[in-house]
């Protein structure tokens, strides 16, 4: 409760929290803000025809356009509040539903990475020297790869096997995202392992799994969770980067990086087609900024020694 109070007091983290709440609102309200044409696949960006050149916004005031679409006064195809890309994918639709993709991707990747890190780190810390040594050397091998280069490689290899899509990119990022957490959790378990209550549990005859899950992990997991919550923004960036490179979400999927990749074909005339990059990049910037503002404040409040991670 004290933490929450301090988060609310700091103007920077308050800004971050308000922004996050705004995005949560957009994600929840997506079906009303941008009604899908085909309700069974809402993540397919609404397409108004197939014309190759991007169409400008259909209204002068995008906010007014959004109001008209949300209240059902006008059809998305006429209003196009943020314009369209080549192939007439509606950018407003993509940005709104892309918010859901961003949350999903960020939470899934972070969750999976923490889970793997938890298992690997626990094994390394709890079971003897040899097992720990081998497991940590394997972790070192994974850390010997530059994160994004390795993710690009795994995504490229997975594509012919399971196809291009959100899952492919997420798996690629998870493959190289868990190491920090396994190291963190290992260190914290090593610190907790020697405490008296663990000894007491062992004396009482508790098994390995029970000691680990019931006695050690609850006391060691907190720092890892804090770091993980700060990393969500950076995973969203990495995923968008893969999409932008053409290795993430498939064409037409509601994802910010995927929409931005349409801009690549129009670089010499971006002054004319400014709307392709303005709206998705604004959404992404604010989203990541929100996580970073909250994360920064959290770190200052909870542990000044924890350092952030580098992203692209």
């Amino acid at each position, binding site marked *: 409760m004290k933490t929450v109070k301090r988060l609310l007091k700091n103007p920077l983290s308050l800004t971050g929290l308000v922004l996050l709440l705004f995005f949560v609102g957009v994600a929840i309200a997506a079906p009303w803000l941008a009604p899908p044409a085909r309700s069974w696949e809402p993540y397919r960006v609404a397409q108004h025809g197939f014309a190759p050149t991007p169409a400008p916004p259909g209204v002068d005031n995008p906010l007014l356009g959004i109001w008209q679409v949300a209240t059902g006064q006008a059809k998305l195809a006429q209003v196009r509040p943020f314009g369209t890309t080549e192939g007439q994918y509606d950018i407003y639709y993509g940005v709104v539903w892309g918010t859901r993709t961003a949350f999903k991707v960020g939470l899934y990747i972070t969750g999976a990475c923490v889970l793997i890190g938890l298992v690997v780190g626990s094994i390394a810390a709890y079971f003897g020297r040899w097992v720990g040594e081998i497991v940590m*050397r*394997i972790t*070192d*091998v*994974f850390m*010997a*790869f*530059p*994160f*994004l*280069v*390795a993710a*690009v*490689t*795994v*995504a*490229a*290899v*997975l*594509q*012919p*096997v399971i196809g291009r899509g959100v899952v492919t990119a997420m798996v690629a990022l998870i493959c190289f995202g868990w190491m920090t957490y396994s190291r963190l959790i290992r260190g914290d378990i090593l610190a907790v392992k020697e405490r008296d209550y663990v000894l007491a549990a062992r004396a009482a005859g508790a098994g390995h799994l029970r000691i680990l899950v019931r006695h050690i992990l609850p006391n060691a997991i907190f720092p890892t969770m804090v770091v993980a919550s700060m990393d969500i*923004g950076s995973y969203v*960036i990495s995923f*968008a*980067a893969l999409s*932008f*490179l*053409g*290795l993430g979400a498939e064409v037409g999927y509601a994802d910010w*990086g995927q929409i*931005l990749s349409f*801009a*690549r074909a129009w*670089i*010499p*005339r*971006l*002054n*004319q087609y*400014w709307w392709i*990059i303005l709206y998705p*990049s604004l959404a*992404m*910037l604010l989203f*990541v*900024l929100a996580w*970073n*503002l909250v994360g*920064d404040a959290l770190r200052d409040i909870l542990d000044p020694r924890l*350092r*952030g991670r*580098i*992203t*692209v």
Partner: protein
Amino acid sequence: MVAFIVRRLLILPIILFGVTVFVFGVFSFLDPVMRASLYVRDVPKTTDALQRIIAKYGLDDPIHIQYWRWINQVVRGNFGWSKTAQRPVLQAIGHYLPATLELALWAMIPVIFIGIWLGILSALHHNRALDHTTRVFALVGWSFPSFVYGLLLLMVFYAMLQWFAPGRISDWVIREVIAGTFIQHTGMYTLDAILNGRLDVFGDALRHLVMPVITLSYIQWALLLRVTRSSMLETLRQEYVITARAKGLKERVVVYKHAARNAMIPVATMGGLLLIGLLNGVIITETVFNYPGLGRMAATAATQLDILTVLGITLFSSVLLVFGNLAVDILYAVIDPRIRLE
């Protein structure tokens, strides 16, 4: 210190072995038919022919035999044939390396010097206007995905103002290279321009470098600035700094000789992270600006399923990273008196 370095050197082969095993493991994730298709240029007419290829190259053999065969070739420099670059992978890496190196050098040298300097200044002006400005600068750098501001830079400075251009060099320079009036010594246009005494080529190369350099280095600025600042803040509170001040030393001497030198020790450990950022960053940056280097080569190859090229570049960059980290650790041992005098 010797013990530390020896221990570090002993781990090195294990890591390198693990890296090659992983790269090969990723590769063998594809089934033999797919792997065979990476090596043949003509489509086999019958399934029989395909089976013969698989048998001939032993793509169905036990995995450790295949690994042994593969690692023998890799050690000799044979990474396979790059379909996107239309030459052997190692040759392709050599061909694109100078461009990436040029970009990286232009990005890193100012970052290291000015980033550290700004970090120190920021710490000296703690919680004043300059400190707040640099912190906001760093936070924005942290939150902006590099491809987004790359695109924004292109929109403003290329599409609107026409000041800078994507790509690496203008066509007229390439024509001069082909005609032989401009000799390439190193493959890096800015350096070659100086060696040839050609200011116009230097200017043209620079015009193409400005935007990718900014895009590649912004996050590095942010990182270095933050770490230097916090390390410097901590050092300035140490007792030996107070002692130095009490002795009546000049402020400049206190800051740069007593405080900054010690504050640099944690900053030196950032070397590895900077290298990772660089290797990751070139993929995005070079793709956004259509800059023909290793990063764009990797991205293009990945989208066109040219797996051998991607694996080659991954292996190359991770070996680079392993040795880079080794260099950083040794540097750390040398500059940190606590390890040096162990």
